[in-house]
């Protein structure tokens, strides 16, 4: 439906989009995910026509639209701030695009009525935007775009301004709406849980480039770069020394690898929920190579899940998830844990992650990796921690346990 060929866009000295090629399929829900400043919004604005690329071509339905102004492109956008016309009523806001197309009055009014009922706002057509709640404005913005039956709907962080509860219900509602209407959605967000819940495919962006384009499941379980591993979900990223092709070591932690590797070092991803905890008392009798011990240094309670920060005697910090329905352990309490080999993901050694840790220090998102912009960190913290409360993280947690 949309084909981007080698798109680049620079603003002064900043390269916002760096040679991006992307093929968006008809009828899919594609999310551009990344921290602020990664170029996702610029990419969306390039598709909408608000910016023109310095280089590359944009095809919409096999037609070159690179030089077409926004009002000649058959795409519509839902803006982050909604951008409802404050001087027009709800009905006139929704009718705006149809009026521009010079459709007959009767058709305009029937399509506006349809759109209003689609977003469940029937009865509010004569209100002005300032008389609506945030959620209602969001729906008007959606109706105003959808009523034009665009080939592609672009959504620029449309849920960012809603409170958490409303945001979660709108996520599901948007997803169902997209499936029902069959319109291609291109959705921009910095919220990784939103991306995982809603999308058919996710494009994770960093520094103007697409790091990985895959299904949410792939992105979470098989990230191809350390950046993706760290940005999506919570992670322990460990730079290990290989002892044998299947045996690796970092500080005092020894790990068995799922597949043999023939390098001296490797970067491993271990999700917190992949670390299986066992209270020390029960397992003291069975010290084996797979069982390691650590001290609990911090408890991070997020509601449905609880994360534990562990420290091994050798000073390695790890983030683990407490299994559900387990009483909270005490800080300072010794714990033992195992890391099943099949739960370890091998990351290609990539320099995209500046924080790829000083040797032996895990770069999970809750610590402060050196070299990352502060803004990015603040974002990851706020985006990742509450994200666990949406049920999705928990599902993954169970996935992790059952394997």
């Amino acid at each position, binding site marked *: 439906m949309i084909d981007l060929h080698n798109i680049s866009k620079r603003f002064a000295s900043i390269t916002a989009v760096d040679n991006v090629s992307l093929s968006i399929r008809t009828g899919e829900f594609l999310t551009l995910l990344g921290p602020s400043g990664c170029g996702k919004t610029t990419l969306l604005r390039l598709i909408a026509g608000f910016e023109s690329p310095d280089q590359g071509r944009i095809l919409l339905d096999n037609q070159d639209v690179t030089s077409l102004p926004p*009002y000649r492109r058959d795409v*519509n956008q839902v*803006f982050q701030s909604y951008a409802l016309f404050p001087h027009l009523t709800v009905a006139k806001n929704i009718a*705006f695009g149809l009026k*521009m197309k010079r459709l007959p009055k009767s058709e305009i009014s029937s399509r506006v009525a349809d759109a209003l009922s689609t977003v469940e706002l029937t009865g509010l057509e004569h209100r002005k935007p300032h008389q609506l709640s945030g959620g209602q404005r969001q729906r008007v913005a959606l109706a105003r775009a959808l009523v034009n039956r665009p080939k592609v709907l672009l959504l620029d962080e449309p849920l960012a301004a809603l409170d958490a509860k409303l945001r979660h219900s709108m996520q599901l509602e948007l997803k169902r709406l997209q499936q029902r209407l069959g319109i291609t959605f291109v959705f921009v967000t910095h919220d990784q849980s939103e991306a995982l819940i809603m999308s058919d495919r996710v494009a994770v962006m960093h520094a103007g480039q697409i790091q990985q384009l895959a299904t949410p499941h792939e992105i979470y379980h098989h990230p191809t770069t350390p950046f993706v591993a760290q940005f999506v979900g919570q992670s322990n990223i460990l730079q290990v020394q290989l002892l044998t092709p299947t045996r690796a070591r970092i500080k005092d932690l020894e790990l068995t690898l799922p597949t043999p590797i023939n390098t001296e070092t490797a970067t491993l991803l271990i999700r917190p929920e992949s670390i299986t905890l066992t209270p020390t008392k029960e397992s003291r009798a069975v010290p084996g190579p797979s069982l390691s011990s650590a001290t609990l240094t911090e408890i991070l309670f997020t509601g449905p899940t609880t994360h534990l920060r562990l420290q091994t005697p050798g000073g390695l910090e790890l983030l683990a998830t407490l299994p559900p329905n387990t009483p909270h352990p005490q800080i300072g309490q010794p714990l033992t844990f195992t890391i099943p080999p099949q739960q370890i993901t091998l990351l290609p050694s990539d320099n995209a992650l500046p924080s790829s840790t000083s040797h032996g220090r895990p770069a999970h998102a809750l610590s402060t990796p050196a070299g990352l912009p502060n803004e990015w960190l603040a974002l990851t913290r706020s985006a990742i921690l509450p994200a666990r409360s949406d049920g999705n993280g928990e599902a993954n947690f169970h996935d992790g346990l059952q394997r």
Partner: protein
Amino acid sequence: MPTKRPTILSYLLMLPIAIWLAAFVIAPAAIMVVYSFCTRDELGEVVYQFTTDNYHRALAGVYWSIFLRSIELAALTTALCLLIGYPAAYFIARSSPRTRSTLLLLVMIPFWTSFLIRAYAWMTILKDQGLLNASLTWAKLIPSIMNPTALLYTPTAVLIGMVYSYLPFMMLPIYVSAEKLDPSLIEAAMDLGAPPLSVFRRVILPLTRPGIYAGILLVFVPAIGMFAIQDLLGGASHIYIGTAITNQFGLARDMPFGATLGVLLMLLFILSFALLGRRQAVWND
């Protein structure tokens, strides 16, 4: 949101301005109204004897044309200020914050000099052997400085002076409303298929309308009463209502009749305020 009831303190804080308005706006206006129904003696002193003669005199004959000419000049001034000022104000509001403050400063700088001095400056520009005619000669648009285009002491000179004086008063309120305009609304309109002209007509214009109304009031109302520009740049050929009123108080020593003209002018202002104010109220709803 429930509005907080004003406290005693807030009334106290309003007291200085209330006293000011009572002493310097309401009282003089009341005196004017009283004078307009009085007569005068031979020496020009006001005689408190009720009469409506002043109004009969003002509404008959020559003063109608003076009023109309003044309204016409004020309307033309307002229209030109709007035409020149709107694009400029919009451009300033849409430029980057740095450029914006520089440009606003440029708009304000003329106010650092006395208004009269600026009017005299226009005289040196517009006079027969002035800057403008010299430039036109140099550009070979007129054959010789000895055959200049007459500008000073013509209605055109008055209009130039008026537009020059009132342009900032049109630009500032338009700038304020254009600056508040969310640029994503313009993008939204384009996104919904509106070409630039429709974007202007359906989104930008309606949303900057409060600024336009404020600008019109700020220019039109004082422009009707203006007399200095006409006196300095217009000469004696055409008389405007401002000049007529000053003449009654000064040369003619007929304060009651001057007051009558003033009261009529005031009624005109009240009327235009009421009209525009109502339109604005309708918009704000």
